[in-house]
């Protein structure tokens, strides 16, 4: 099973390595990891997507809770949350494939954000699944560079309002 962990941690040096080290030491998977400061500058939010057995998911939460730099953990499944990922793709293009690229981008909802004579940069922010779809569609075309943020997620409003 896949599970998303939204982990609030103390915004101190070394915390990222402590948390990722825990995953490495106990052989937990990290499918995606995204970190950023929250509205409180002393607190960072780590969004970790992991997959494995139900028992492993339970252990991840318990072991994270033992870390003294971890303030709070929410864990949920994909359907219980809004997930987003940002991707930047640099493509080599020429006359013959330029139209195809633009069609794919229009279909997928991606935007061209920069262009030179031989390369252009495409941006998309959507669910991780859609982002992967765009990447798959463009994979037949010459991709020069790719950067992705990893998954960001927050639990759906209706589930957190009571």
């Amino acid at each position, binding site marked *: 099973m896949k599970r998303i962990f939204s982990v609030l941690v*103390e915004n101190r040096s*070394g915390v990222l*390595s*402590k948390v990722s*080290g*825990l995953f490495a*030491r106990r052989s937990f998977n990290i499918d995606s990891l995204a970190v950023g400061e929250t509205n409180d500058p002393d607190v960072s939010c780590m969004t970790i997507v992991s997959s494995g057995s139900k*028992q492993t998911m*339970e*252990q991840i939460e*318990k*072991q994270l*809770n*033992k*870390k*003294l*730099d*971890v*303030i709070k953990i929410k864990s949920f499944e994909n359907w219980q949350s809004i997930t987003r990922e940002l991707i930047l793709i640099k493509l080599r293009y020429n006359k013959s494939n330029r139209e195809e690229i633009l069609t794919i981008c229009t279909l997928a909802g991606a935007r061209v954000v920069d262009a030179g004579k031989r390369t252009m940069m495409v941006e998309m922010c959507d669910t991780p699944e859609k982002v992967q779809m765009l990447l798959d569609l463009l994979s037949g075309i010459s991709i020069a560079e790719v950067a992705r943020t990893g998954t960001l997620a927050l639990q759906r409003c209706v589930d957190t309002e009571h």
Partner: protein
Amino acid sequence: MNGADAVAKCLELEGVKTVYGYPGVAICPVYDSLMETGIHTVLVRSEANAAHAASGMARISGEAGVCICTSGPGATNLITGIATAYADSIPLVCITGQVKLDLIGGDVFQEADITGAAESFVKYSYLVRKASDIPRIFREAFHIATTGRRGPVLIDIPVDVQNTEIRKFEWPEEVNLRTYKPTFRGNPMQIRKVVHALETCERPILYTGGGVHLCKAAPLVREFAEKYRIPVVSTMMGIGTMPSRHELYMGMAGNNGNLAANKAIHDSDVVILVGARLADRAVNDPQKMLAHKTLIHIDVDPAEIGKNAACDLPIVGDARAIFEDMLKEEITMKDITPWSMALREIRQKKSRRVVPERFTDPAVFVKTLSLAMDENAVYVADVGQNQIWSCANVVMREGRFLTSGGMGTMGYALPAAIGAKMADRSRQVVSVSGDGGFQMAMMELATMNQEDLDLRIVVFNNAALGMVREFQMFSLNRRYTMVDLNGGPDYEKLADAYGIRYMRIDDNEGIEKKVQEFLSGTGSVLLEVTVDPDGVVRKAGGSK
């Protein structure tokens, strides 16, 4: 007052009386400041042993053990000791010197990223950046080490931070960590469910681990067992919860445990697991073994519950607090006498193992030794065959049994015995090692002498690494390699070199008298016990 003075003052305020360590330039300011306090400093001969000695002290005193070492190699040498304490949840505060703050990361002389290197073996670690943080950090560190699931906490202090003047020493009245609030009392609803499970069961057992000793719950667990006549088995770390010859005690369970204990687990319908984690050596396949029975798991660490086996009824909290509450309940049990009587019968069966004629029989020796020891003596076993012989044959009364259970660190016994003795000099302390483990720690004979300690030291000599040799015997078709210890030393000369008494036992004749002599008088004694290199610990767990 500078940072180092603040460290010394913090240790005084925490009630620390003894610290173990090894100096170096990066920690010199702290040792200098300690001279102004009443704190006794013990110079060990190798850093890992500072942590082992602090561990031995912590396990007897119930308070955090403290060790202080220098940066770089001093700190990295300490790691094995820290990891050993972590595996057995022993409360330690380990202080290391570090290079100057602005040199960190420059690969300068004797620099090691110790907080990074030790991360997976510590409960928490600090790199002190401001001297004024020292009081808060030390207050927190002692709190973290000695509450919840105990464990080592590391404080790394750059040498310039130790030398920085601080204007005001602010000692926090209490510790308030928003991310650390261990559960102490057990949930009353869960306790009610335990009562119900006990009222409806027919074959209950209590299965106790090292956690019982760590929170001083042993007397309460015993009282509970006696009140309801529930049979008790223990893990290696739980030895001593019950006197060995107590009618309700069925011995140590597990791979190296005895028949009655394993049968008790196998045939039971309710298992109350207390402060144990169903480690791989204690229960081969916990999931399978515990199927079709109710597992009640009492542990202070919620992550242990359900980690190695699915649990039916978890209670998170301090075992002492939980048993205080459970003893207030009036439980109407079914008649479980047939169950405990049946186990008792198995427990009393005579062992069928053959006693070797040419060498000393380790089983006979351990039994004789432990019966001759003071009632409240501390028996410290090392790691290897000597440990299994000890576990299986030691006769516990009101004393303590210490060993490195989780990590299995060879060389633990002698330094841990030093710490145990320093925690309570009135108690008899016996260190039992094999010749392999002893040679990993024998430099500490000097520490023992320097501190004027009276230890009784047993070395089982089979001129081999017995446990590995036994593995090669059974699993690798007797292809022996890397197990011969033929380079000496001559233990009589070694004892002489350190100026301590030497004795030797070569066979089982007159063993009681010799053991009496070994334990009598004053001053440390090194006792060499020659044992059969072909001796095996399989089925070591006979009866008592």
